[in-house]
């Protein structure tokens, strides 16, 4: 596959595409870095100039910064936990033959197509509302009181919304992985005297490692930047209870109109994301090989 002919021809032909790709990705990044060192508030057109690290300083020393970091992590871990564990269980269930398998698959898949905004609105108003929400109605039917989801467990509520949207993704990847398991392996384990549980632990779960890795990787990428759900429901509150990093950046750059600080926040978010990605790749990257 590799004569100089094909290599150089290949590089030549591909280089424009890669260049476009790189420019596309570098330009916003470079501009963000540039702005992060500038004084730039939309509402003060005449205050401009080099700001040094002031933007970074103020962003990091903001009392909301630390909670935002922790909440970001909690959100990612919470959703990952629900979707992978739930996904595995669901995949095991859906892998059994039963009547209407195709339809149930469609039902389970559906939340993946729902816009985050719609999902958040629907959960907030029609389900989690402590007075008119469906959960409250159900609680009342059993003589309880409506639980104030967004007031009392705001982050958990957001985790539930996000997990609902990503559960289908996890389930279907894991289901596909499960279906690719060589039947003979299960039978071999059966011959070897493995119980159902042992088969799950020793055969099925290891077989799914790679798929689980992909689920974790892709979801982390998307969940690290969750923002619409928070915007629609809690706005990061009460207090800082459901504030995450992207939302803090949003507050700085859009609510405060402070472009410089927003850019600094963006740069910090990228750095942190890369650190997470780095550890993620370290920890699970080898599962992605071959």
């Amino acid at each position: 596959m590799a004569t100089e002919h094909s290599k150089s021809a290949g590089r030549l032909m591909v280089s424009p595409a890669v260049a476009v790709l790189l420019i596309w990705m570098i330009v916003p990044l470079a501009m963000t870095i540039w702005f992060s060192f500038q004084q730039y508030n939309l509402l003060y057109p005449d205050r401009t100039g080099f700001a040094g690290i002031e933007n970074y300083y103020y962003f990091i020393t903001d009392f909301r910064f630390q909670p935002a970091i922790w909440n970001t992590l909690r959100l990612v871990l919470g959703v990952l936990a629900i979707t992978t564990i739930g996904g595995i269980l669901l995949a095991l269930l859906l892998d059994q033959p039963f009547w209407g398998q195709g339809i149930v698959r469609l039902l389970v898949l559906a939340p993946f197509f729902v816009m985050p905004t719609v999902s958040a609105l629907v959960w907030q108003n029609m389900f989690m509302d402590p007075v008119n929400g469906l959960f409250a109605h159900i609680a009342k039917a059993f003589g309880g009181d409506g639980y104030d989801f967004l007031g009392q467990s705001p982050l958990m509520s957001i985790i539930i919304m996000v997990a609902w949207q990503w559960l289908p993704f996890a389930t279907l990847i894991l289901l596909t992985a499960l279906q690719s398991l060589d039947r003979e392996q299960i039978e071999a384990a059966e011959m070897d005297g493995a119980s159902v549980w042992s088969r799950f632990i020793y055969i099925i779960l290891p077989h799914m490692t790679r798929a689980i890795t992909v689920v974790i990787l892709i979801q982390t990428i998307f969940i690290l930047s969750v923002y619409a759900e928070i915007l629609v429901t809690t706005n990061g509150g009460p207090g800082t209870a459901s504030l995450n990093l992207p939302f803090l950046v949003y507050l700085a750059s859009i609510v405060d109109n402070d472009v410089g600080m927003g850019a600094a926040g963006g740069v910090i978010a990228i750095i942190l994301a890369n650190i997470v990605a780095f550890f993620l790749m370290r920890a699970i990257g080898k599962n992605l090989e071959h």
Partner: protein
Amino acid sequence: MGQITLSKVVKQFGEVTVIPPLDLEINEGEFVVFVGPSGCGKSTLLRLIAGLEDTSAGSITIDGVNATDLPPAKRGLAMVFQSYALYPHMTVRKNIAFPLKMAGMSPEEQEKRVKAAAGVLNMNKLLDRRPGQLSGGQRQRVAIGRAIVREPKAFLFDEPLSNLDAALRMGMRLEITELHQRLKTTMIYVTHDQVEAMTMADKIVVLNAGRIEQAGSPLELYKNPKNIFVASFIGSPKMNFVGGQVAKYHNAATIGVRPEHVMLSTSSGPWKGTVGVAEHLGSDTFVHVNTEEAGTITARISGEVVVKHGDTVWLTPMPDKIYRFDAEGVAI
């Protein structure tokens, strides 16, 4: 230990009957090979014995105990799968130890037994590799190791060699045969390669569409095939079949003659023809001759003969080695 009896065993998948009522007796210590064309039910039969499929009717007895409804793990049999079904995420050691671990054996005992099995199969050095890092033959050995280690009443093999290349196949074939001679455990072996069947079996069971066409020792089948199906299945290169006038002359609908029983002459003989391809193996020569009387006939000549594409030759079947079959294909 290792006496298996099938009586009136039937297997249906939905409406389709794959195995019609079938009786079979496998004696202790016997090496039984199931052969037959693809889809004839070999694997199904094996899986019924293993307990991986339920019988639709009939009963299976293992060492005098009715095992028809026992789960696979309780039957005391070990199976080597066509794909080997090694656990890819476990080292060879863990693969082999797995059945022991499932049986709740202590780690020391496990290690001891794994070592012993590895010794038998000569793969002490491979114990810490993973299946992905092994060659086909090595994988095969691990699969066998996993079977041996349980000291089963019988081994079941489902086409274990079909994924290997020709050279390796020969080696592994010998290894399994030797293993059998050493362990003297009952072995049931599925293949569709008749060379394997011939060289390994104490008893060959020829299956066709779920029915047993003939069962017996390899030489019995080679010498006295009950019908054309068996005759064409056993022996390599395949038996030559001739119908028409030639067969009529022998008072049969079809006659068969094996390549090794055809003599070739450059001067005379009953069947005249031209050489198509001559394959020179050094030890033998396979000559494919297009004859007028009998169609294309393959002759196997020991050693080296000097024939080329297009040469005219004469063929003579050895008269006492001619098999005669009636219109239904049954041997006369």
